[in-house]
C-alpha cells in the first residue's frame, strides 16, 4: 500500500513536470488528491499496534524486501506505519494538497516545475515517515532537501539565494553528523542489517560493543549527541535555529507552509525514533541538559518573536518556540509527554501552516508583511482576518483547538517526569503568555484600528480558492481540539512502550 | 637475453622525456605526442615484466593501453581542433577563460 502511495505521488510529480504551466496548478491539486485519499484510507484501515521499532510493534501495511547488501550488512526495502508515523503521513498529504491550492495565486512563473517539485517533495516526505530501514530512510531524508532548496532558491524573495544555500548547507552538515553517529552505532552493534527495529532493539538490549577503541558507554553518548545535534538543526532548537527565519521569510508561501508544517516535523519525528527510542538511557542521564534546551527554545524563541516586525518572521520564531515544547515532551519519556509531543507535531503542522497561509493571503493583496505598514485590515478582509484570529488563538493554545490539547498533554506528561521537572515545565509554560503577547500585539497593530496601508494597493476580499484551504485547516484544528482521541489513541498506543526509559 | 633493468631504464627515459615535453611545450599537438610517449613508456614496462615472469597478462594490458591511447588521441585531436577554431592557435597558455 505504501509503495502505491509513494509511486502515485512520484509519478504525479513527473506528470506535472511535463504539463504546461497553464494547467499545472489545477492538475497538481487534482493529482495530490490521490495520496490524500490514500492516506485517509490508511487512517481508516489502520490496524497496527505498538511501536514500530520495538518488539511489541505490530505494523500496519508493512512490506520488506532485500534491496542490496553493503559488506555483511543488508539494506532492505522496509516500510510500515505505526501510531506515530500514520498521523504524520496524513498531515503531509493534507498540507501538500492545501499548499498546492494556496499556491495558485502567488506562483505565476514556471508553474509546472514548482508543482512538480512540491509533489516530489511530498513523495520523499511520505518515504521519510514510512521507511524503517536506515539506508532507505536516509535516501528519502536527503531527497527532501533538494526540492525545498529549489523552491526557496527559485521562487523566493529578494535574498532567496542566501536563504536557500544557508538552509541546504546547514541542514546537510547536520545530516552528515547524524549519519556518522548512526553508522558508528551500526558498526559497533551485532546487527545484520540497517533495519531501524533491529538497531533499536539491539541498542536497548545493551549489545553495543566498542569501536575504534571507544568504550561502549562513551560511544553511545557520543553517538547520541551527534544524532541529537543532527536532528536539532532540523527541528530547529536554539541555538541551531537561525536558518529558519531566513528560509521562511524568503520562501514562497506554499513552501513556508510545507517547511513549517512538515519539514520541521521530520526533525522531531527522527528525534523520537532515534534518540528517544533507541537510547532512552542516555536521554535520562542528560535529562536536565535536554530539558533545558527545550525550555530555552520555548522562551527564547518567543522572546525573539516579540521583537519582530515581519509577520512571517513572527510565525517562524514562534515555530522555534513551539518545537521547544516537543523536546520537553520527548525528554519526559511518559505516555502523555511522548504522546503530547507527537500530537504537537501534527497540531503545530496544521496551525503554523494555517498562519503562514493566512499571512500569504494578506501578502498577496497588500504586498507587504510588515506590521508597521498596515492597520485595520479587518475592515477590508473580514474573512481572512477572522481566520487569522482563529489561527493566532490556536497558536496561543486556546482550548478546543488542537494546540491546547498538545500543550496540555506535554505539560501533564512532563510535570512529574523527573526530579525538578515541575520547574522546567512551569518555565516552559510561561511561553503561553509570551505567545499571547506577540500575537495580540501584532494583530492589534496590523488587523484592527482604522484602515491604513503604506503600499497603496487595492485591498479587497481574497479569492475563494485562497480561502478554502484556510477553512479546511481551521476545521481540522477544531476537530482535533475537541476530539484529540482521533489520533491521540493510536499515538499513545505506539509510545507507551517507551515510557519510563530503559526498564 | 637482455636483463629487465635495461628495459626499465629505457622506459624511465622515455617517460621522463614525455613528462619534460608535457611540461615545457606550449603547442597542444606536441603535448599530445609527449603523452603518447609516456603511455608507451608504460607499455614497455608491461611487456618487459610480462616477458620476465612468463605471464601474458602484461602483454594483454599493453594491447589495452594501445587501444586506449588511440581513443585518447581521437579525443585529444578533437579538443585541439576546437581549440584552434576558438582561439585560432593551439597554444595551451591562451584558453584561460574558464578559470574561477
Amino acid at each position, binding site marked *: 500500500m505504501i509503495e502505491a502511495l509513494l509511486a502515485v505521488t512520484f509519478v504525479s510529480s513527473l506528470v506535472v513536470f511535463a504539463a504546461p504551466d497553464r494547467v499545472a496548478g489545477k492538475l497538481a491539486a487534482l493529482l495530490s488528491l490521490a495520496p490524500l485519499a490514500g492516506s485517509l484510507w490508511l487512517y481508516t484501515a489502520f490496524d497496527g499496534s505498538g511501536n514500530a521499532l520495538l518488539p511489541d510493534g505490530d505494523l500496519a501495511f508493512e512490506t520488506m524486501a532485500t534491496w542490496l547488501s553493503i559488506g555483511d550488512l543488508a539494506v532492505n526495502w522496509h516500510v510500515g506505519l505505526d501510531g506515530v508515523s500514520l498521523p504524520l503521513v496524513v498531515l503531509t498529504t493534507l498540507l501538500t494538497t492545501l499548499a498546492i491550492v494556496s499556491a495558485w495565486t502567488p506562483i505565476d512563473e514556471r508553474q509546472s516545475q514548482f508543482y512538480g517539485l512540491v509533489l516530489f517533495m511530498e513523495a520523499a516526505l511520505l518515504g521519510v515517515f514510512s521507511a524503517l530501514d536506515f539506508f532507505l530512510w536516509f535516501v528519502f531524508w536527503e531527497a527532501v532537501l533538494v526540492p525545498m532548496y529549489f523552491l526557496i532558491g527559485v521562487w523566493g524573495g529578494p535574498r532567496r539565494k542566501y536563504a536557500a544555500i*544557508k538552509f541546504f548547507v*546547514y541542514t546537510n552538515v547536520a545530516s552528515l553528523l547524524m549519519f556518522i553517529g548512526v553508522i558508528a552505532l551500526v558498526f559497533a552493534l551485532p546487527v545484520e542489517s540497517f533495519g531501524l527495529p533491529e538497531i533499536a532493539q539491539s541498542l536497548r538490549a545493551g549489545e553495543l560493543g566498542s569501536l575504534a577503541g571507544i568504550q561502549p558507554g562513551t560511544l553511545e553518548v557520543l553517538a547520541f549527541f551527534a544524532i541529537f545535534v543532527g536532528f536539532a538543526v532540523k527541528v530547529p532548537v536554539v541555538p541551531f535555529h537561525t536558518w529558519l527565519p531566513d528560509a521562511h521569510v524568503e520562501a514562497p508561501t506554499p513552501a513556508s507552509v510545507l517547511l513549517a508544517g512538515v519539514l520541521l516535523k521530520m526533525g522531531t519525528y527522527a528525534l523520537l525514533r532515534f534518540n528517544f527510542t533507541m537510547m532512552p538511557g542516555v536521554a535520562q542521564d542528560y535529562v536536565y541538559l535536554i530539558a533545558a534546551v527545550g525550555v530555552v527554545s520555548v522562551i527564547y524563541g518567543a522572546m525573539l518573536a516579540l521583537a519582530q516586525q515581519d509577520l512571517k518572521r513572527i510565525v517562524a520564531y514562534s515555530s522555534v518556540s513551539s518545537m521547544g515544547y516537543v523536546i520537553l515532551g520527548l525528554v519526559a519519556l*511518559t505516555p502523555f509527554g511522548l504522546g503530547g509531543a507527537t500530537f504537537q507535531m501534527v497540531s503545530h503542522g496544521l496551525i503554523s501552516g494555517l498562519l503562514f497561509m493566512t499571512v500569504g493571503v494578506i501578502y498577496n493583496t497588500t504586498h507587504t508583511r510588515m506590521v508597521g505598514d498596515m492597520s485595520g485590515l479587518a475592515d477590508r478582509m473580514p*474573512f481572512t482576518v477572522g481566520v487569522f484570529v482563529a489561527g493566532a488563538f490556536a497558536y496561543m493554545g486556546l482550548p478546543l483547538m488542537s494546540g491546547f490539547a498538545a500543550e496540555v498533554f506535554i505539560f501533564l506528561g512532563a510535570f512529574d517526569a523527573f526530579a525538578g521537572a515541575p520547574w522546567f515545565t512551569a518555565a516552559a509554560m510561561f511561553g503561553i503568555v509570551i505567545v499571547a503577547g506577540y500575537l495580540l500585539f501584532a494583530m492589534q497593530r496590523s488587523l*484592527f484600528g482604522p484602515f491604513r496601508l503604506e503600499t497603496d494597493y487595492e485591498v479587497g476580499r481574497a479569492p475563494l480558492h485562497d480561502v478554502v484551504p484556510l477553512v479546511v485547516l481551521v476545521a481540522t484544528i477544531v476537530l482535533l481540539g475537541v476530539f*484529540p*482521541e482521533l489520533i491521540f489513541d493510536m499515538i499513545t498506543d505506539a509510545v507507551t512502550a517507551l515510557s519510563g526509559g530503559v526498564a | 637475453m637482455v636483463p629487465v633493468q635495461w628495459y626499465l631504464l629505457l622506459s624511465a627515459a622515455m617517460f621522463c622525456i614525455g613528462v619534460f615535453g608535457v611540461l615545457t611545450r606550449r603547442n597542444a599537438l606536441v603535448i599530445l605526442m609527449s603523452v603518447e610517449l609516456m603511455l608507451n613508456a608504460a607499455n614497455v614496462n608491461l611487456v618487459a615484466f610480462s616477458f620476465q615472469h612468463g605471464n601474458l597478462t602484461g602483454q594483454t594490458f599493453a594491447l589495452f593501453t594501445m587501444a586506449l591511447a588511440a581513443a585518447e588521441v581521437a579525443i585529444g585531436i578533437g579538443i585541439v581542433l576546437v581549440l584552434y577554431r576558438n582561439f585560432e592557435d593551439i597554444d595551451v597558455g591562451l584558453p584561460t577563460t574558464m578559470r574561477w
Partner: protein
Amino acid sequence: MATIGEIAPAIALLPLASFAVALASVVFAPRLLQKGGAIPGILATAGSLVLSVWAFVHVGGGEPIEQELLAWAAAPDSFELTLGVLIDPLAALMLVIVSLVAFLVHVFSLGYMNAEGETGLHRYYAELGLFTFSMLFFVMADNILMAFMFFELVGLCSFLLIGFWFREEAPASAAKKAFLVTRFGDYFFLVGVVGIFAAFGTGRFVGSEGFPHLAEEAIAEGHEILGMSPETGVMVLGLLVLGGVIGKSAQFPLHTWLPDAMEGPTTVSALIHAATMVAAGVYLVARMFGFYALSPTLLAIIALVGGFTALFAATMGVVKDEIKQVLAYSTISQYGYMMLGLGAGGYVAGTFHLMNHAFFKALLFLGAGSVIIATHHTHDMWKMGGLKEKLPVTYYTFLAGSLALAGIVPFSGFWSKDEILYESIVHGLGTDGGLGVLLLLAFAFGLLAVFFTGFYTFRMVALTFHGEPRTEVAEDAHGVGWSVKLPLIVLGVLATVAGLVNMAPLDVEYLHSWLDTTEEAGLLTSAHHYEEVLHDVAHVEAATLTPIATAAVSLGLALAGALAAWRLYGSDPQPHTDRLGSIKELVGNNYYQDEYQVWLAEGVTLPLSRAADTFDQVVVDGVVDGVSSVSLFSGRRIRRIQSGIVSNYVALLTAGLVVLLVTFAFMGGWF
C-alpha cells in the same frame, strides 16, 4: 420524554447552536437572518433558561446531575481526561443566573445594538452565543481541566466582544489588554491544573475521588504532595489556581484590564461583569472551596486580596467621570467583597453576593446602556443630569440597583454584603493566629469600602438623573423601547427582592439550606461539609457576635456615604473632587497601576526581546555566518591555483607525484 439529567448538556449547547447559526449566516447569507441574528440567540438563551430552571428544580429534589460528556484523552497507565457535566446546587444556581442574564442581555441588545444601526450584528450575536456557551459549560464543568478550558474560552469571547468596534484604536487595545492580563493569571492557573493532576491523578471537583477530598486525606494522613508537606502542597497549588481567579475576577494587582474593557458595547459589559467572565473567577473559588478551605494561609490571602481590592477599587470609583467607569470600579470592588467573603470562610455569603451582584450589576450596566442610547452615546456623567423625568423606568430600576449596590436595607446587596462582613469579623475574632489577624484587617478594608461604595453610587445617580440637564443631549434625551425596559424591570425586581432569600440577621437562610440540598449524594460540596472542613482542618473558629451590630454599622456607613454624595452632587453639582488636589491626581490615575504594567510590557519585556533579537542576529547567527565565511574566504584564496593554464596543472601534478614518491621512499626506507 427525556429527563433533565440526560439533556443537561443542552443548556450550554443551545447557545453554541445559535453561535453556529449566526456564524454560518455571516459567511453564507447575511441577509437571510432578520435582526442581525438576534432571534436564534434569544431563542437559545431562553431555552437555556428554561432548561436551567428545570435543572434547578431537579437538583432541588436532592439529586445532583452528573454525566460524562466526552472521554477527551487518555493514555495507558496515566491520566484520563474527560469532559463531564456536574450540576449541584451551586452550579444549578449559577446556571439560572447566567442564562437569565444572558437572555436579558440578548433582549436588551435588540434595543441597544439593532436599533442603533450597528454593522456586524451577526458577528456580535455569534460572539454572544459563544460567550454564553463557554460560561455555561464552565459552570457545569466537573473537573478542573474542563473548567480551565472553558475559562480560557470565556477569555477569548471577552477579547472578541470588547474589541467589537475594532475599527477604532481603543477597543482593539482594550481587548488585547484584557486577554493578555487574564492570560498572565491563567498561566498560574494552568500550572496549578497540571500540578493538581500530577499530585492527585485526577481533576474531579467533587466526591471522595475528587482532588479536594484527596488533599484533605493527604493532610489528615500526612502524605507528601509533590515532594512538599501536604499543607505546603495544598497552599502552593491553591495559590497557583488563585492566579487565574485574580486575573479573571480583576483582583489587585491584575485588575487593570477591566476598566479598559468598558470600550466594548455596554451590553457586553453587563454580561462580562455580572454573569460571565469576571464571575468565573469567584465561581471557581466557590467551586473548589473544599480545597481552599484546607489551608488557613490560602484563606487569609484570598480574604486580604479581596478586602484590599474592595477598598482600593472603591476609592478609584469616587473620582471617575464616565458612568461606565464608575460601574467598572464598582465591579472590581464588589468582586473583592466576594473574595473577602469566601476567604473568611463564608461560602454561603460569597455565593449569595455573587448572585445578588449578578442581578444588580447587570441592571446597572443595562440601565447605563439605556442612558447612553437615550443621550446619543454620551458617557460623561457631567454632560447628563435631570434624566429622571425623561427616563422614568430606567431611573427607578437604576435606583433599585444603586440601592442594592450601596447596601441599603432591604435591597439585595445589603443582605449579602452584611453577611460577608459578619463572617469576616466573627471568624477574625474567633480564629487564633495569623489568619484571625489578617481576617480582621480584611474586614477593616471591607468596612471602610462600604462608605466609598455608598458615596460613588449616589454620586453617579445624582449626576446622571438629578439636577438640571447640563447639555443639549441631556435635554433632548429620547425614550427607550420595550426591549430595553423589559430586562430593566425584570432585573430591577430581582435586585430588590433577591436578598430576601438569605436574611441571616433574621434567621431566614433559604440559600444556606439550598446549598445543603444534595448533601446526601456524597459530592462533598455542601455548605455544611465546608463548615466542617474549615473547622477541622483550617481551624477556623467563629466568635459570638450579634449580626445586628455589623449590619447597623455597615448600613450606617453606607447611608453616610450616600448622604454625603447627595449633599455634594444632589442639586447643583460641582467637580468637588478637584479639591482633593494631588490625591485626586493619584486616584484619578488609578494609583499608576496601568503605568507600571505597561512599563513592564513595553519598558522591560520589549527591550529585552530586542536585545535577544540583536544577540541572536549578531552572535548566534554570526557564528553560523562566521563558519561559512571561513570556507568562503579560504575558497577565494585557494582558487587562485586554478590559473587555467594546462601546463601549470601538469607541473603541479608532476610535483605531487614526485613528492609522493619521495615520501614513500623515505617511509619504505629505500634510502
